[in-house]
C-alpha cells in the first residue's frame, strides 16, 4: 500500500475573504417586533459601541465548506487508519453513537429545563452512573468531569476533603506518584494543593515498593496510580501497595487512562482503589475530536460518596432528579452536569457491547498489544524494556536506544518516518523513564492485517535507519507538509499565534 495525504496548500480563511460575501443569513425580525423598538443600535450605550467591526472572514457558504473539507482531508483520524498513540486508546468510534446525537431531543435540551421535561436524559445518566459503578466496583459516580484531568482534579479534591474531615489536611500534604505516571497526575495533585513525591520504577517495570515504604507515613495524602501502568505492565503488587497506603491513612487513586485492558477481568475495587476516573474518549469509544471534548467521570467507595461534586443524578422510585443537597461535597467543578453529548455516546456504546462485548474489548486489546510486542521483540534493532519478563497489557513501550547509539537517529525521527507508511505514530518519549521511547497502543479495534502492516512499517523504518539514514532524518514525505520547524514556532522572535500576528510580521518585514 502506498500512501499520500491530501495537500491543498489552503490559505488561511482570512486570506480568502472577499468583502461583501456572507456564508449565513441569521433570522430577521418581523415588522411588529421592529416597530416596537426602532433601531436596535440605539439601545447600546454610546460608550460601549464597538468602534471597529471585527475582522472576521467574509466568504460564501460553498467556499467555507470547501475550505474546511479540504483541511479535514489534511488530517489523519482513526477512520483513516491505525492510530497506535500509547495511553490515548485511539479505538474506532462506532457510528451509531454519533447518530444518536442527531436527535433534537438531546441537541435542543436546555440544562435548566424543568425536571418534568428532562426525565429521559436523567434516566439515561442515572443508568450510566450505575454501569460505571459496576464497571469500576465503586459505590458512587459523578458524571461531571469534562476530561480525565478534571476527573483527577476532582479526585484530588476529594482526597483533600476526606483528610480535612478528619482534621488532618494540614499534615497530609504529600501525594505519591510513580515516575511513569501521566503528566496530568502531578499537575492535578499540585492544583489541589499537594506536594508530589516521586516513586521510582524497578526492574519489573512496576513501582518500587521499597520506595513506597520509605516515604509513606503520616504526611501521605494518597497515591495516584494507573494500572496497568504506562509501560503497559500490570502492577502485580497492587494489593500490597494498597495495604501500605491505607495502613498509613492515605487513599489510593486510580488514573483510569489505562482501563481498557481490565474490562471484565479486574476492577479498581478488587485492586484496592478508593477513587477512580474513567476516560470515556478512551475506554468508551467516544471520538476524541482533535483534542476534545471528552469526559472523565469519577467514582468513589462508599466512605467517600459524600464528597462527590454536586449535583448527582438520583431516583426516588418515581422520578429522576438532580441532587444538590450534599453538604460535604467538594462543590461544583464545572458548569451544569457534564459533557452530556459524550456521556450519551458512551451509554450507547455500553449498551451495544454489553458485559460480553466489554470483556472481549479487554481481552483483544491485550492480545493485540502482546502480538505487537512479541513481533517487534524479534527485531533486534529495538528493545522492549522489562519484556518478556513482564507481560504487557494494552500497550508496549519499545526503545530505539540502540538505533540512536548506532546511527544518531532519534525516536522522534522514526515517528516521523512512520507517517509515510499511512499509519499514525506511537507516542514518543513517554514514559520518560524509557530512553527513545515509542509507546504503542493498538487497541482492540485493529485487525490482524492492520497490526501486521504497523509492525512491518516499524521494522522497515529500523532498517532504513541503517541503510538510508537521511531518508529517516528528513521524513515525512507523504503527509500534507514535510518536517515542520517546531523550534521556530515557539521561539519568541518568530512565534505567530494568530492571523493578526502574521499580518504584523509581514508588514514589519516589508518596512525593512
Amino acid at each position, binding site marked *: 500500500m502506498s500512501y499520500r*495525504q491530501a495537500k491543498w496548500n489552503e490559505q488561511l480563511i482570512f486570506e480568502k475573504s472577499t468583502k461583501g460575501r456572507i456564508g449565513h443569513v441569521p433570522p430577521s425580525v418581523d415588522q411588529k417586533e421592529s416597530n416596537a423598538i426602532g433601531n436596535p443600535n440605539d439601545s447600546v450605550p454610546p460608550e460601549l459601541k464597538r468602534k471597529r467591526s471585527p475582522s472576521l472572514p467574509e466568504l460564501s457558504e460553498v467556499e467555507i465548506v470547501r475550505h474546511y473539507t479540504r483541511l479535514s482531508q489534511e488530517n489523519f483520524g482513526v477512520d483513516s487508519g491505525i492510530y497506535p498513540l500509547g495511553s490515548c486508546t485511539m479505538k474506532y468510534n462506532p457510528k451509531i453513537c454519533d447518530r444518536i446525537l442527531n436527535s433534537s431531543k438531546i441537541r435542543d435540551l436546555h440544562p435548566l429545563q424543568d425536571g418534568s421535561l428532562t426525565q429521559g436524559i436523567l434516566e439515561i445518566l442515572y443508568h450510566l452512573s450505575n454501569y460505571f459503578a459496576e464497571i469500576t466496583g465503586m459505590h458512587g459516580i459523578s458524571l461531571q468531569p469534562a476530561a480525565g484531568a478534571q476527573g483527577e482534579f476532582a479526585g484530588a479534591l476529594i482526597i483533600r476533603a476526606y483528610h480535612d474531615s478528619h482534621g488532618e489536611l494540614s499534615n497530609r500534604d504529600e501525594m505519591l506518584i510513580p515516575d511513569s505516571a501521566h503528566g*496530568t497526575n502531578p499537575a492535578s495533585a499540585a492544583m489541589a494543593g499537594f506536594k508530589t513525591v516521586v516513586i521510582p520504577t524497578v526492574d519489573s517495570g512496576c513501582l518500587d515498593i521499597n520506595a513506597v515504604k520509605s516515604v509513606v507515613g503520616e504526611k501521605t495524602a494518597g497515591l495516584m496510580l494507573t494500572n496497568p501502568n504506562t509501560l503497559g505492565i500490570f502492577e502485580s503488587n497492587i494489593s500490597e501497595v494498597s495495604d501500605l497506603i491505607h495502613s498509613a491513612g492515605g487513599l489510593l487513586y486510580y488514573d483510569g487512562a489505562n482501563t481498557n485492558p481490565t474490562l471484565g477481568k479486574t476492577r479498581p475495587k478488587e485492586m484496592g482503589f478508593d477513587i477512580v476516573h474513567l476516560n470515556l474518549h478512551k475506554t468508551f469509544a467516544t471520538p476524541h475530536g482533535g483534542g476534545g471534548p471528552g469526559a472523565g467521570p469519577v467514582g468513589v467507595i462508599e466512605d467517600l460518596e459524600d464528597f462527590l461534586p454536586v449535583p448527582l443524578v438520583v431516583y426516588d422510585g418515581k422520578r429522576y432528579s438532580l441532587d444538590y443537597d450534599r453538604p460535604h461535597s467538594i462543590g461544583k467543578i464545572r458548569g451544569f452536569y457534564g459533557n452530556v453529548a459524550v456521556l450519551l455516546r458512551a451509554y450507547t456504546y455500553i449498551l451495544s457491547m454489553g*458485559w460480553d462485548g466489554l470483556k472481549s474489548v479487554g481481552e483483544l486489546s491485550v492480545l493485540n498489544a502482546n502480538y505487537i510486542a*512479541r513481533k517487534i521483540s524479534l527485531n533486534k534493532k529495538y528493545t522492549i524494556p522489562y519484556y518478556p519478563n513482564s507481560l504487557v497489557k494494552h500497550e508496549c513501550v519499545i526503545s530505539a536506544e540502540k538505533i540512536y547509539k548506532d546511527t544518531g537517529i532519534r525516536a522522534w525521527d522514526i515517528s516521523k518516518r512512520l507517517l509515510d507508511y499511512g499509519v499514525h505514530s506511537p507516542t514518543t518519549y513517554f514514559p520518560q523513564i524509557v530512553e527513545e521511547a515509542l509507546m504503542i497502543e493498538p487497541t482492540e479495534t485493529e485487525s490482524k492485517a492492520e497490526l501486521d502492516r504497523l509492525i512491518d512499517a516499524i521494522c522497515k523504518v529500523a532498517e532504513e535507519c541503517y541503510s538510508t539514514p537521511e531518508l529517516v532524518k528528513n521524513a*515525512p514525505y507523504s503527509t500534507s507538509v514535510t518536517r515542520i520547524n517546531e523550534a521556530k514556532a515557539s521561539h519568541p522572535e518568530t512565534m505567530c*499565534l494568530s492571523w493578526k500576528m502574521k499580518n504584523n510580521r509581514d508588514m514589519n518585514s516589508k518596512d525593512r
Partner: protein
Amino acid sequence: MVNSEVFPYLPNSSSRIKNRMLKEIGFGDISELYKDIPEKARLKDKLNIPSSTSEYEVEQQVEKLLSKNRSISEIPSFLGAGCWSHYVPAVVDAIVSRSEFATSYTPYQAETSQGILQTLFEYQSMICELTEMDYTNSSMYDWPTALGEAARMAVRITGRDEFLIPHYMDLEKVEVLRTYSEPAGIKIIQIEQNEHNGQIVLETLEKKITEDTAAVYIENPSYLGFYEKDVEEISDLTHKKDSLLIAGVDPISLGIIRPPGDYGADIVIGEGQPLGNHMNYGGPSLGLFACSGSRLLRQMPGRIVGMTNTLDGKDEAYCLVHQTREQHIRRERATSNICTNEALCAVAAATYLALLGPEGLRNLCETIITKSHYAMKRLNEIEGIRTPLFDAQHFKEFTVNFDETGRSYKEIHDELLRKDIQGGKILSSFPELGETALYCVTETNSRQDMDALVNALNDVLR
C-alpha cells in the same frame, strides 16, 4: 442478545483469528495473558450489565428513553443563564461531523494533523479579532472553569491573593471559581453593584482594589443581562494598582459591543457554546480564553497552535507551541493540568464565525436586541410585571420581576409549564431582588412564542 462471540467493532473477535494470533506469539489461551493479575485482584463474576445488543435494538432503546424529553424545539423556552439557544447552521454540523477531525487525537504529530491545527489557528485568530486580544488558547472546558483558571493565572502572575468579582454573578459559576481557588489560597471578594442600575460602584471598587488584589473580574453583559458601562474607569482603577482586569463575555454580543481588548482587559474569558454548538443539556461547552502581553502568554493554560513553516522553507505549517507550559512536560509545575479540552467545539466556533462574518454577526446582534426588547415591552404591558429590574440597557437576557402580582414566581413558572411554556430561570440566589426571574430571548424565539408567553402570563395572573 447477539448470538455470537463476534463483534462488529472487534475485527479479531472470532476464535479462528484469535487462536491463530495466540499461537503465533506462543500462547494457548487468552487467560495466559492475564496471569500477572493476582488472584485477589481478579473479577470473579461477569459484569452486571446487560449483554450485547444489535445496533437497531440499541437505537430503539436509546431513542425511546430520549423521547421522554421535551426539548425547547417542542415548547417555547426563555432560558439562558450559562447555556443559550442559538441557531446552529447546517454547515457547522457538516464540518464537525468530518470524521478526519472528529476521530483524531490532540495533534502531537503535526505533519499528519495540519487540518485540525490550521482550523484551531483560525479559531484562535477569530477569537483574537472578536475580543481584540493578542493571544487565544485552543479552548478550556467552559466559562466557569475558564474563570477558575484565570483566577489562578492572575495570582501566579501578580503574586497576590485577592480576586474581586461582581455581586450579580451566576452562583454556580462562583462555586466553580471557589473550587478552583480554594486549594491555591485565593480570597474571593465581592464588588458592590448599584441596586438600581446594576453598575459597579466605582467608589467602593477603588477602596477594594489594594496591593493584594491580583485581578478584578467583570462580566459584560452581566449575568443579569445589563451592560457594564464604566469599563474605562474600572480598567483605570484596576491598572492603577497593577492588578489585572479580567472580562467575561458572551462572544455573540461582541458583534455590536466593545471588545474587552479595547478597554484594556488583560484576560478575556467567556462561553463559546453560542458559537455553533448545540446545547446538549449543558455539555460540552467551549471555554474561551484570551490574553494580551507576553508576560501573560507564558502563564496561559491550555493548548496553543502556532504558525511556522516546514524545515525546507517551502510551506507554511502549524504545530502546538509553548508546550513547556503544559502538564506532559512540566508536570507539577505546569500552568494547568488541562489536557483534553473542547477542540471540536472550537472547530464549530471557527466555522460559525466564518459563516456569519462581521456583517452576519452584527445583524444577529440586531435581531437579538430587537427581539429581547420586544419581549420586555410586551411583558411590561402586563399589570404587576416589571422588566427589566435594572435601569440599564440589556442585550439578550433581562430580569422580570413579579413582586406586584402578589404571587411567587415559582408558582407562576409552574403554571406556565402547564401551559407548555418554559419560563426563565428562577433567581433564588438574590433575595433582595424579590420574585424575579432571568429571561432570555434570542433569534430562535419567534414573535409567536413571545406573544404566547404574554398571553399565558395574562391568563395566569388574571
